[in-house]
């Protein structure tokens, strides 16, 4: 029956209960997504970031697991055996070459694990030294960033929450440290601190990491917390003024709810991203100091000290310089690209 369009009579059909088919329209087909899941999805779509993540993970895993089954250790001088004369044929082996003793073993049918990258001037397996150096560089980068995060977060949130004079004092200090030429101060502190710390570490838990790396950590805690503190203070100040925080307050949310549901989730991505971007810069600084002879203590290798040692024999053994150089560039490039990808994926606001 056709209805007069001007008729005020309403259609009874509109008020019937919905059929199953109609109900299906209202069902959400996609499972609800969280901010974290969304970010991960965006990250996976970013090919460059994904590839760099794989590279970094591979490097990190191999630096952890390879030393477990590798038959040589980083400080073992293969030519020096207790009770035997020093076998110099172990020194300066080219990649995949064997020393005299090893050649005899092979000719007698024995098996010798190859020296993939050869050995160095003291007869140490170079491959395991590079792997160990990578492990040290990564660990230094990671822990230095963690220290920066902790110090920066403490100072930043104190400044943000206390406000007033405390905020003012902390921010002036930040300005001052910010305007100091960081690398020069780092070199100065590193040069002095290894003298002051010196032997006082013996017998403590810090003995294993040595005075140079410890002073590197102290330097990071002293000088590099500024940008983190600034960032966190800014986040706290701006987030407190946001409308949605006001809205949450208006609907009766308590302080705890606001902090856990609004402030932390909105802050955390920014904090994680800048921590991730801090790691390559810490690795950079460590390798720079190691190259100047202010880094890790011998015989412990780091990528920077390996490159620096290789400089002496550069014309004869150029690969010994190229290998740590390539690894370090791969790590720094990979972490930088991955950090950029993280930023794009988790903080679209920053990218505008």
């Amino acid at each position, binding site marked *: 029956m056709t209805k007069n369009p001007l008729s005020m009579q309403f259609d009874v059909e509109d008020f019937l209960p919905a059929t199953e088919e109609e109900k299906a329209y209202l069902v959400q087909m996609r499972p609800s997504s969280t901010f974290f899941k969304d970010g991960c999805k965006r990250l996976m779509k970013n090919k460059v970031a994904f590839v760099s993540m794989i590279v970094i993970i591979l490097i990190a895993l191999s630096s952890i697991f390879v030393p477990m089954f590798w038959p040589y250790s980083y400080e073992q001088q293969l030519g020096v055996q207790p009770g035997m004369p020093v076998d110099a044929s172990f020194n300066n082996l080219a990649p995949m070459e064997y020393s005299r003793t090893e050649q005899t073993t092979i000719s007698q049918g024995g098996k010798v694990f190859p020296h993939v990258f050869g050995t160095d001037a003291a007869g140490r397996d170079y491959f395991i030294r590079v792997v160990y150096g990578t492990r040290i560089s990564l660990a230094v980068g990671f822990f230095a960033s963690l220290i920066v995060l902790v110090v920066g977060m403490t100072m930043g949130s104190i400044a943000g929450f206390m406000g007033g004079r405390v905020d003012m004092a902390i921010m002036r200090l930040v*300005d*001052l440290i910010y*305007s*100091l*030429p960081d*690398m*020069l*101060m780092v*070199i*100065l*502190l590193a*040069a*002095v601190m290894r*003298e*002051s710390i*010196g032997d006082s570490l013996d017998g403590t838990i810090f003995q294993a990491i040595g005075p140079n790396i410890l002073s590197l950590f102290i330097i990071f805690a002293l000088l590099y917390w500024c940008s983190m503190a600034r960032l966190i203070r800014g986040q706290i100040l701006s987030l407190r003024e946001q409308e949605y925080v006001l809205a949450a307050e208006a609907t009766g949310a308590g302080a705890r709810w606001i902090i856990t549901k609004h402030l932390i989730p909105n802050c955390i991505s920014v904090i994680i991203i800048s921590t991730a971007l801090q790691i*390559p810069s810490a690795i*950079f600084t460590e*390798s*720079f100091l190691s*190259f*100047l*002879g*202010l880094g890790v203590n011998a015989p412990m290798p780091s990528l*920077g000290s390996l*490159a*620096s040692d*290789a*400089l002496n024999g*550069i*014309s004869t053994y*150029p690969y010994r*310089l*190229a290998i740590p*150089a390539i690894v*370090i*560039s791969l790590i*720094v*490039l990979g972490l*930088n*690209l991955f950090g950029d990808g993280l930023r794009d994926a988790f903080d679209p606001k920053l990218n505008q």
Partner: protein
Amino acid sequence: MDSKTLRYIIKRILMAFVTLWAVVTVTFFVMKAVPGDPFASEKAITPAAKAALEAKYGLDKPLMEQYKNYLVGAMHFDFGPSLKQRGRNVSDIILDGMQTSARIGVIALLVATSIGIVLGSTAALHRNTVFDRIIMVFTTAFVSMPSFIMGTLLLLLFSVQLHWLPANGTEPGGLILPIVTLSLYPMSYITRLTRSSMLDVLGQDYIRTAKAKGVSEKNVIWHHALKNSLIPVITYFGPELAYIVTGSLVVEQIFAVPGIGRSFVNSITGRDYTLIMGTTVVLASLIVIMNLLSDIMYKLVDPRITLE
């Protein structure tokens, strides 16, 4: 120049002085915190000779007086005698090294800035072409490479393998590789900076207006786009100099250039404390002054910018 700008500049200069004072103070007290006395390495010296040495270097005075003397001396570019190089003043050693280092540094600065601007704006104008892609790939790689790696790889390639350029900085042509090493990173950075700011400017309304009025493509680029897109480059001058100064420490080491960077590194390994202090103060002052200049220039060029 309005009074607000003037106030900003004065504030900025005062801040720079505070920073310089902080540098001198930190260096002084950090050095005083080193355990042991500077003459410990000397062959067993009699107490009388030691007292005479301490009196000569002014080390017998109370700490605050030493600090005051050092502060006054630093203002006059006088850092006292070197502890290890007999009969030479720290300021003379610094001036000596400065001659070579400044030449390398200034050339690297000019090369990096000019090539960076040209490459960056060309890449932006030919956006998404093969040229642009190549530039971006290379600059990304260079930005992630520490200067000592860059230097050693260049040394490996051009001196050891190809024998095109000498590996030693004192030979003729030996300064080419150090200059290239120092300029690659800032060049890449400036290229990326110029490219992104040029792209930003090209999307602005006033560029469209100029094009709509019939201004030729060349004029739009030269008169409207380029000038504004170079503003961010000005802010990079400070960090650029800082990079070149710290980079010269390793680059001079790699290529055996007799400059201030090498004498600084040698003074650290040789524990020549007065030389370490003097060099730190001089280099830090250079960087602070450059930062000051680039901030002021930035403010003068673009009055819209309000820095806190």
